[in-house]
């Protein structure tokens, strides 16, 4: 219940935060909403000696729009994404995903950047971020760089962030009005994390054929992944229930699926198919 003692910093700029992180090295942790880090600290599974609270950095809380993309600051919380008119209207998938994270109180505190940096394999965002092909803007001692979502999630609790690097913003493409999206999730009953989460984006042409599709899956493997075979199978096909069901088959093929007390690997694999199908159906407007 009680974190170990630490030294606390409250930088007011990204640069200051990064240089603090650089100065204190591995013993330092960034704190954004705190909803991934503090629970670990309270259980003393994480014992940073230096905590760098990002809460005072205004840049990180902004949502701006540039060049057909939203630039969402890392400290934007789930509730904001869930309720922002802009996001709901023009990048609905992100709002749909944010709305299914944790519970109302958690959504008021937990942040996009905090969750993503933590690279929890059962977190919700990665499925959507992969499907949306977002870019992560990060700043480190060597300056700013961008990392594609596909490269960002490396492994279990491991991201492409280098030591002292901070996720500053996520660049999310605005979805055209003909693009449907959905996030469907099987919740772990106790924690609310995803046993399986599937995010889908679908657009069809005038003839009802699939013109664009992207499916991101989280919860199943050590990191989120794109269901590329299913996407390939759907592209150019009529978006019928039958075709979707056929395409969303063996979604987790080739993925190292681990079981635990909440779901065996077999079940997780099977549910990946079910929830991918449900997400595509809903994104295609064929179900709720």
């Amino acid at each position, binding site marked *: 219940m*009680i974190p*170990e003692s630490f030294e606390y910093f409250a930088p007011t700029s990204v640069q200051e935060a990064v240089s603090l992180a650089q100065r204190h090295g591995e013993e330092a942790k960034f704190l954004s909403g705190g909803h991934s880090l503090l629970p670990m600290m309270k259980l003393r599974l994480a014992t940073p000696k230096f905590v760098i609270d990002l809460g005072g950095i205004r840049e990180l809380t902004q949502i701006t729009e540039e060049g057909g993309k939203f630039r969402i600051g890392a400290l934007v919380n789930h509730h904001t994404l869930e309720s922002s008119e802009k996001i709901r209207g023009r990048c609905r998938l992100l709002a749909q995903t944010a709305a299914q994270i944790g519970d109302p109180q958690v959504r008021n505190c937990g942040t996009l950047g905090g969750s993503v940096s933590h690279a929890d394999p059962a977190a919700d965002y990665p499925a959507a971020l992969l499907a949306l092909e977002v870019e992560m803007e990060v700043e480190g001692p060597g300056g700013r760089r961008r990392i594609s979502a596909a490269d960002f999630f490396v492994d279990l609790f491991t991201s492409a962030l280098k030591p002292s690097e901070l996720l500053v913003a996520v660049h999310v493409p605005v979805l055209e009005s003909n693009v449907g999206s959905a996030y469907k999730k*099987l919740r772990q009953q106790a*924690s609310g994390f995803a046993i399986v989460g599937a995010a889908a984006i679908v657009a069809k042409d005038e003839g009802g054929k699939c013109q664009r599709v992207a499916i991101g899956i989280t919860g199943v493997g050590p990191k989120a992944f794109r269901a590329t075979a299913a996407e390939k199978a759907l592209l150019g096909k009529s978006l019928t229930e039958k075709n979707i069901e056929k395409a969303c088959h063996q979604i987790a093929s080739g993925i190292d699926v681990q079981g635990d007390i909440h779901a065996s690997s077999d079940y997780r694999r099977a*549910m990946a198919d079910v929830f991918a199908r*449900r997400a595509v159906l809903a994104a295609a407007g064929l179900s709720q």
Partner: protein
Amino acid sequence: MAQQYIGQSVKRTEDPRLITGLGHYVDDMKLHDMHYVAFVRSIHGHARIRSVDISAALQMPGVVRIFTGEDCRSIGSIPCAGALEGLKVPAHPVLALEKVRYVGEPIVAVVATSLYLARDAAEAVTVDYQSLPAVVDLERAASADSPRIHEEFSDNIAYTWALTGGDLDQAFKEADKVIKQRMVHQRLIPVAMEPRAVIARFLPGEHELTLWSSTQIPHLMRTQVAIMLGLAENHVRVITPEVGGGFGSKLNVYGEEAALGFISMQLHKPVKWAETRRENFAATIHGRGQIGDLEVAIKKDGRVTGIRYKVWADLGAYHQLLTPAIPTLTGLMLTGSYRIPAARMDVTGVFTNKMATDAYRGAGRPEATYVIERVMDLVAQELSMDPVDVRRVNFPAKKDFPFATATGLTYDSGNYDAPLKKALKLAEYKKWRREQQKARKKGRYIGIGLSTYVEICAMGPSPAMPAGGWESATVRIEPTGKVTVLTGASPHGQGQETSFAQIAADMLGVTIEDIRVLHGDTGVVQYGIGTFGSRATAVGGTAVYRAIEKLLQKGTLLAAHLLQAPKKEIQFEGGKFSIKGDASKSISLQEMALASYTAKNLPVNFEPGLSSTYYFEPKNFTFPFGTHICVVELDGDTGEIKILKYVAVDDCGKVINPLLVDGQIHGGIAQGLGQALMEEAVYDESGQLITGTLMDYAIPRANDLPWFELDRTVTPSPVNPLGVKGVGEAGTIGSTPALVNAVVDALQPFGVKHIDMPLRPEKIWKLLQKEAQ
């Protein structure tokens, strides 16, 4: 008596302080110069303690003292009240000595000047363990070649116990069919929202130890802690402020309570310990934990004529207060609400490297009800009968009450068909059966489950109880006429401050605002037993009733004296004593109170003051009953269970406060459904508690539950003058089998006969997969 309050949905008098955050739970209290205790607990399921190093911790800031098992050798063993013949009772020290036997067992107590510093120092204590093979699997634990948990015993079997009644051999010989089934009652974690907490303050001058503890049994705790610490009982006071739920988990005497008392006696400082949720999961009692093999003799017409039930009970590493006794309650209720002439239950109680099991809401009876209600559905399936008909064939009739069971009980009153009938109508049973048929044709799986439970309540007659089953009450009219009720029952959320005030207000003809119900302080309240076993109103409420009767008798004597009339002509009505037929002469309770305390004009040999105390000893238990019906639909893709309808018609005898009764039923159903759907304490092979936090142990949330449709029938109990039975556990007992029966019913097309709980989606999905292949 005019019933102005009894039977009414009176708003609770407890609530104003609770909804404003002004109530005080133990952890909300702070005493001057208080120190804080943090425990170092075993991280092994089974290990020898090679050494404990506290030297680094002693150097930490704020550390006052550190206690090891050696330092606490003078404290008596943690008590067990379950006295079964041949019971092996291992020593149960408050801090582990040579060995640890479950994850979470306390080893060291660190005392520091703040909560944060105590925790820091606890982290700095190092324990050198020699890991031993953990004994986790119940049946393997019972085998002769299992590693032993307690070296002083020859095996891990703590006891065997049997209950038998009727002619079983004949039943099985004459049976048309015999059904066999294994059933598992998984381990559960009670999860009272307030974890345990203790403050101990020893005053050396008065040589008095006061314990503030979140407990259901302040008086029993006082006695036991006094014995453990070698203190005179009248120098120990236990105070129970607000208690944030118990469900049996606080019907106990824990090592921490005695340890805190001991530490305060050593340091002459008040000390506090508030359990963390992780500690609560690992080191507060668990519930259930039975595996049973069942054999049932049945006749072609659906009659059940005999039951054999052989049970392994997972006791955990040590006995807590009632650990070994819980499975015996299963035996008593094994024949349920049915006329089953022969029954036998054999229990083998087994030590395992886990936290002790003990009373968790229902305590032994949910197991019995689950078994017998599953049996009714197994019989229906075997004989292709409607489960409703099987139940009706086996019900005793209304005229058969009081009804003697094969297990030796006498059910006080009952009319089992009445709630069944009502529930069938309310649930639209026939309509759902038709829906089910239609849905099946479309590949949808709807199931309808019933549970026509009976349970044993109002615990209970003292000869049948481990520590006396009576309850006490004092009713005192204060000199100003205000009424104080002291109850020995120690309610902790049930609302007896309100319901007992309702009883007293009606009997005394005063308003409920004139009454204050006090409880949970051994320095204020006469000895009492506590709140558990759905007993507070039926036994404690009756004590209040009897105490008031006694008080009014005394009042009548004084009234006769003051009104100068013969005793037999005095009547008491509307808060006034008067002469029958002469309304002009009367004396109010308030006037009488003042007269009795000022004592200027009393009858000869009349004791001044106006109060009375009554200890009510019930002659029998009470047996509430009812029907729960649950309709579910399974998600064919995921195995998730959706509850479409939930109906509960309960009969808990007469009702003092319908609002509170409904609340008890709702909460009970939720807990029972929690067991059926999601809850399970899981230990791995090495004895690690895998479900060690609320991140891994699920309890129902608001959106996991449906709207419960409630109704009731009223069959008064003849056991007490209020006619009440008890309702604290009925919901939990009734709901679990209703849900499981519904799911098994939904899976009938797949030939499924039984599924063990919890019915997690994956389990259902697997069954659906099998058939698809």
